């Protein structure tokens, strides 16, 4: 995806602006962003449901343009908030989709997936719960062992056991050398399965990096409870701490000094209790979002 911009009809603001993304074979790419940031637009552009205003999208090196139909034989797609046709059973729907898939369809793997996800194939889709609809959505995305998986909120509505099955499927696809592009609101999940992340905000990619780098660079946060309210002001004015959040008598900070020196600074205040936590991806995500918001 190179320098892709998309304006919706009648909108003066682009939904996605000069977005460039490269997803490598065998890589799981996590695409993060708040609601309306441009995640779904990006995914729909990738799937050729939306046509870019400018820029180009290419799959599998420079082999083919996005709109060439045959490319989709090698793509597995899961829409966000899966909608299934009504008045048909899961089995009928999957059989129909498999027929459209043509020769690329792997019958054995399809059976394996339906067993793994404990899918209710003979119930009508309009009587299924969100979780069960999601399972059918996942099966249709994985069943032909695609070279590229594009998944929008893949674990939405799945119980923890099924989420584990999904992680296994992702791992298998990765082992096969498939490129996986997923958007998720579950940052814990992204941290667990992704190799690289991109953060999109207001249609622009504001951060891109390896998860390993994010983990390596993350700093611990200190949750400090103070006896005197006046000490909160002192802490806020201190150049040695970055204030992340605060409540009435508790402040969550990130020290900018080495540990021993920071502890020394804290000993001057009326600290009642203290808890040290390692920032997770959520804090990092919030950090990028907040920083950009301020700037």
């Amino acid at each position, binding site marked *: 995806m190179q320098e892709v911009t998309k304006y*919706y*009809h009648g909108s003066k603001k682009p939904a996605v602006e000069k977005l460039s993304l490269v997803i490598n074979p065998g890589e799981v790419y996590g695409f993060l962003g708040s609601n309306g940031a441009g995640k779904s637009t990006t995914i*729909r552009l990738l*799937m*050729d*449901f*939306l*046509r870019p205003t400018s820029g180009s999208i290419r799959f599998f090196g420079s082999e083919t343009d996005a709109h060439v*139909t*045959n*490319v*989709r*034989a090698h*793509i*597995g*797609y899961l*829409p966000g*908030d899966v*909608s*299934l*046709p009504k*008045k*048909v059973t899961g089995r009928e*729907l999957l059989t*129909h*989709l498999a*027929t*459209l*898939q*043509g020769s*690329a369809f792997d019958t054995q793997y399809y059976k394996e997936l339906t067993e793994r996800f404990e899918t209710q194939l003979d119930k009508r889709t309009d009587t299924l719960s969100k979780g069960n609809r999601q399972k059918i959505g996942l099966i*249709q995305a994985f069943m032909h062992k695609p070279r590229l998986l594009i998944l929008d909120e893949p674990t939405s509505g799945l119980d923890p056991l099924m989420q584990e099955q999904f992680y296994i499927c992702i791992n298998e696809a990765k082992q096969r050398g498939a490129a996986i592009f997923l958007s998720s609101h579950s940052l814990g999940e992204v941290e667990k399965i992704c190799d690289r992340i991109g953060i999109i905000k207001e249609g622009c990619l504001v951060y891109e990096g390896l998860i390993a780098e994010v983990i390596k660079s993350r700093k611990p946060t200190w949750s400090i409870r103070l006896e005197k309210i006046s000490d909160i002001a002192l802490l806020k004015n201190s150049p040695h701490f970055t204030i992340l959040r605060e409540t009435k008598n508790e402040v969550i900070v990130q020290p900018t000094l080495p540990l021993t020196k920071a502890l020394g600074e804290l000993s001057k205040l009326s600290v009642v209790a203290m808890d040290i936590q390692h920032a997770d991806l959520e804090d990092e995500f919030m950090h990028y979002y907040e920083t950009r918001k301020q700037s």
Partner: protein
Amino acid sequence: MISILLWEIRRRKWFTFWWTFGISSVVALTILPYVSVKEQADELTESLGELSSSAGSFLGGADLFSPVGYISSQIYYITLPLLLIIMVLALASSLMRDETDATIELTLARPVSRTSILLGKLLAGLMIYSTVGIISYIIAYICAEVTALSINSNHLFVTHFICYIFAASFGLLAFMLLAASSRTRRLAMPVTILLSFGGYLITSLAAYSSVFDTIAKATPYHYYNTTKLLTGEIQQGLVIYLALAIMISFGFAFIGYNRRDIG
């Protein structure tokens, strides 16, 4: 394309059954009572002659009790085309609903071109519509034979066929507007209903006022004269309208669907 065609037909088997049953029943229940009308046809025609000519235009003509007048006014001028227009609009809307409820995404994600998807849907619609058309024609033919309607069977077939094409032209127009762009989607039903039902009203009112007469010439109903069709006369204007409607609808639907954003 064949997979999409079969899928759409399979999903609409009950739709096809009930519309075939309903329309065939209406045809049978309208033609069969002619047995009792036939005996009093002359007296009834005389009574009707006392009414204004414009009143008769709402019913498709003043000659309501001759075999041609009866079948034209009771079936082919109003009842059958209006029922078929309702059916064909419901069918077009149902075939294109997958975009509104986002289920189209699962199909579009497969190695199937947009042209194949649209063609599959269109052919499915055509096959469903033809099933209703063929069965109701067979019923009309049998009923006409039973009631000994002295209408040439070829003329009956042509009238039935043109009635179906005439109603289908509105369905195609709706289908084109639904397929062509996200902006025309919203206009599909209002425009088609206005052109079909509104056209019928304006053409009927044309007998009352010259203003309506002028407007009526711009509506398809103006060129749809079933009495002439049943006597073997095919209006050139109607054929031109049908050919244009079909070609333009096909063209715009396919070009628009291939170029626009979906979903």
